[in-house]
């Protein structure tokens, strides 16, 4: 577990802003970089600036960034002895991580076993529950037969509850119950439906979270039994399950409560022997945290944690992979100030249709507390083949208000032509009363967009 893996050349198995982000971290650690790229990305900044650049396939991601065999062979022919997968693509593919290690190459990420364990949502939840990470309160198994037992269980869980069929799915075979007097009837009805629809009358029950927020905990674990949590992020502003804007720390949640959850995440990491960076995602409502899933990779929104804790998560990932112990103590990690990230996408801010093409103007923001993570330069071509994320504007302030204020100025400074971007959407969101107050739920943005459509 504590073997030292010296490596001098890192292959970056990704593209876009994150490839450049990883390249910077490698440079700072004195490591050479290999950029593997598709034909479409031959003029991309991280490719032009890499120590070694190798085109591994055509534009199709399946034949380039998702081609595990090609990437491992590319590491061999370029002499790279470590692979950083970034996010997306192969980053949470346990088979890839395993193949990399079998080829004698260091995988900058968790063990294949951890990736596999967390990839299965049921085993992930069971593992977390066993480690004391809070999950959605519920029956933890089939509902009892006796009416009195069901009533007692439901009041212990707390109303509203959702009664679900074990064999159900896809939104069928479930019923929300708002109070105790509706419960028995609802259970009987759902049981009947479950029997008819799925041939299985088994039901279970969970607390129904109506307006949850998406809160996540960043963890960092070395191979010397140290597991740390680096604070929480609020990623509630989402559209179709895609995060749009994130902030740290989550507004309005008591730091003691976050610390308690953070400590349970770190303990879970120790229990499963987790390695590297990871994120525990939770739904949060009325003071209750409920574990959803763990992401066993670097997150898009990692910079807001870096900005509030001062810890370079990507450098830490690489050093952990080298077998170095984390030179950090939990007691010394504090979230200072506030950071907000806007994901800038090449898309129509109203229809959300992708807007690929040549970026003829790219005037970037700057000044105190502003960070821009991007691979775009004036003249870059935004490819139609991949994700539309072109930049992340991150603002840090002593207070949330200061961060918002800096972000507004930065977004006004970021001038992009002639592709369309979602900058106008972010500008409108930063002035939305709900956002300004803080603590909106995961449905807020969708509702906001519906209203915008109607007006």
């Amino acid at each position: 577990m504590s073997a030292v893996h010296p490596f001098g050349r890192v292959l970056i198995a990704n593209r876009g802003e994150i490839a450049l982000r990883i390249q910077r971290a490698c440079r700072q650690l004195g490591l050479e970089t290999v950029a593997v790229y598709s034909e479409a990305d031959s003029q991309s900044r991280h490719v032009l600036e890499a120590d070694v650049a190798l085109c591994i396939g055509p534009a199709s991601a399946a034949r380039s960034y998702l081609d595990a065999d090609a990437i491992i062979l590319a590491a061999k022919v370029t002499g790279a002895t470590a692979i950083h997968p970034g996010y997306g693509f192969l980053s949470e593919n346990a088979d890839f991580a395993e193949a990399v290690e079998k080829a004698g190459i260091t995988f900058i990420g968790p063990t294949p076993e951890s990736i596999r364990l967390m990839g299965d949502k049921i085993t992930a939840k069971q593992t977390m529950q066993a480690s004391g990470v809070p999950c959605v309160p519920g029956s933890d198994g089939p509902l009892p037969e006796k009416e009195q037992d069901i009533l007692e269980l439901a009041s212990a869980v707390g109303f509203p509850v959702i009664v679900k069929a074990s064999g159900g799915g896809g939104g069928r075979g479930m019923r929300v119950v708002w109070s105790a007097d509706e419960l028995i009837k609802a259970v009987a009805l759902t049981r009947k439906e479950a029997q008819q629809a799925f041939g299985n009358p088994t039901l279970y029950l969970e607390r129904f979270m109506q307006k949850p927020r998406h809160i996540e905990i960043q963890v960092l674990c070395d191979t010397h039994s140290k597991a740390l949590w680096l604070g929480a992020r609020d990623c509630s502003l989402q559209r179709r399950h895609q995060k749009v804007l994130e902030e740290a720390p989550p507004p309005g949640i008591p730091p003691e409560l976050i610390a308690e959850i953070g400590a349970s995440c770190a303990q879970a990491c120790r229990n499963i022997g987790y390695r590297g960076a990871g994120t525990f995602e939770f739904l949060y409502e009325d003071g209750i945290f409920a574990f959803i899933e763990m992401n066993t990779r670097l997150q898009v929104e990692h910079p807001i944690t870096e900005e509030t804790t001062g810890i370079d998560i990507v450098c830490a990932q690489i050093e952990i992979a080298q077998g170095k112990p984390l030179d950090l103590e939990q007691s010394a990690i504090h979230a200072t100030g506030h950071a907000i990230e806007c994901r800038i996408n090449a898309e129509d801010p109203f229809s959300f249709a992708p807007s690929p093409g040549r970026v003829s103007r790219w005037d970037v923001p700057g000044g105190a507390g502003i960070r821009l993570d991007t691979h775009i330069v004036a003249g870059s071509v935004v490819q139609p083949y991949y994700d539309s994320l072109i930049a992340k504007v991150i603002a840090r302030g002593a207070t949330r208000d200061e961060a918002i204020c800096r972000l507004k100025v930065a977004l006004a400074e970021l001038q992009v032509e002639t592709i369309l971007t979602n900058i106008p959407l972010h500008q409108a969101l930063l002035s939305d009363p709900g956002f300004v107050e803080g603590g909106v739920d995961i449905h807020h943005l969708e509702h906001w967009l519906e209203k915008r459509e109607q007006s």
Partner: protein
Amino acid sequence: MNMPLSVPNFETLPNSEEVVQISQWLKDAGLSSLELSNAHGTRLRISVGDYDPPATPSAALASPAAQTHPEKALSTDIPVKAPYFGNVLLCNPVTKKEFAPEGSSVRAEDTVAMLQIGELTVPITAPQNGTVAQFTAKEGDLIGYGQTVLTLQPA
């Protein structure tokens, strides 16, 4: 280039590569946009903007290489491109003989060079009959996918 065989099935939305292909067809046809809708109320609209505008439309659209190297479009020589990445082998590793010396005649599908990728070797074959005109890669060079290894003068 790929010629339009049929419009993609519109039961599901086309993926990004298909959208690129459709926009290429639109460009070829001199159209600026296309709109499709189906019975489920799904609507697809593709507009062709100024994305990578070709300088000389007919020649530039013929091959992606021509867009970045317009001077090559004028030459009649045909590039022989690497089907994968790896180190170039111009000589047969067993017989040590050159696969296709400059000036030699080759037929379509003949191996003109090989790529060494670790323990694997992948042949690079001639796309058509011709005479080897010029090598653009040296023995042992690490080359990427799609990179030109040599040019052929068509027979």
